């Protein structure tokens, strides 16, 4: 039983974080808060990938004669790319938030809905 929990704990926390991020994006009305939620979601996916590549007793995939067991380098490469793309999308989202604030004077979703209804 304990072994079953230890075998899946990383995945479960990744899913918990994913759902917290998801809920923040869907249920919170503030646009900056939504972007922070998106970042939480994103990092949870990174955690899921990196957890899958870990090998027990392995070391970082930097070749050296003293080690023979290495963790899987492929998830690392994929996630390196994803982190940098992630910050690009965050910057784009924040730019949209600034632009919306300039045009509407608010970044709360329900107020934006009201303003859109008026015009």
């Amino acid at each position, binding site marked *: 039983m304990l072994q079953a929990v230890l075998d899946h704990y990383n995945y479960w*926390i990744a899913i918990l974080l994913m759902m917290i991020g998801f809920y923040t994006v*869907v249920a919170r009305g503030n646009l900056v808060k939504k972007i922070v939620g998106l970042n939480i979601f994103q990092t949870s996916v990174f955690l899921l990938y990196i957890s899958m590549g870990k090998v027990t007793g392995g070391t970082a995939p930097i070749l050296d004669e003293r080690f023979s067991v290495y963790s899987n380098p492929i998830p690392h490469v994929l996630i390196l790319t994803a982190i940098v793309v992630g910050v690009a999308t965050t910057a784009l989202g924040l730019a949209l938030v600034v632009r919306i604030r300039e045009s509407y004077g608010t970044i709360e979703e329900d107020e934006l809905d009201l303003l859109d209804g008026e015009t």
Partner: protein
Amino acid sequence: MIITLIDIALLTFMGATAIAILRLRSLFAVVMLSGIYSLLAASMFVVLDAVDVAFTEAAVGAGISTVLMIAVLALTGERERTPSHTPLLPMVVVVLTGAALIYATFDMPAFGDANAPVNLHVAPRYLNESFAEVGLPNVVTSVLASYRGYDTLGEVTVIFTAAVAVMLLIGGRKGDDAGIKKEPADDTEPDDDGGTA
């Protein structure tokens, strides 16, 4: 054993930080906590042997993202308004999705299993051959810059596109005076901007 304990402690901290981010209404505190969250994620990546990912996350996630968000908060204000109702539907959707995903994890190989399918296909070839073929001790660098160089080219394209989009959205405002006001629009009628722009 000690590694497992560190692993569990860091993951639990990450969960607690995420819940605090969800519940807090002060956006400044939320941004600070998201920096802490990224730093915890970076420490987690060190424990999971992904050192390259760890320092990228620490620099980009905890550093640049936090700076960008603080800059935006300076322009938009730092209080989140309390909603009048508690949304029930999102909670139901999130719990159902989470339950389905947890159910799916029981089919996954155990954490750290060296014989998991993900560790058997291409990874051994990279680990065994990359030093002879590329000549770098760091396998992650070999794969990133050589075997999967096109991925990196695509990544650069995405960043370029995002940079162009950000500049189109908020850059070059000096030139166009299409009714965009510099001061915070708290006291102005929001319809003014929409009407003239």
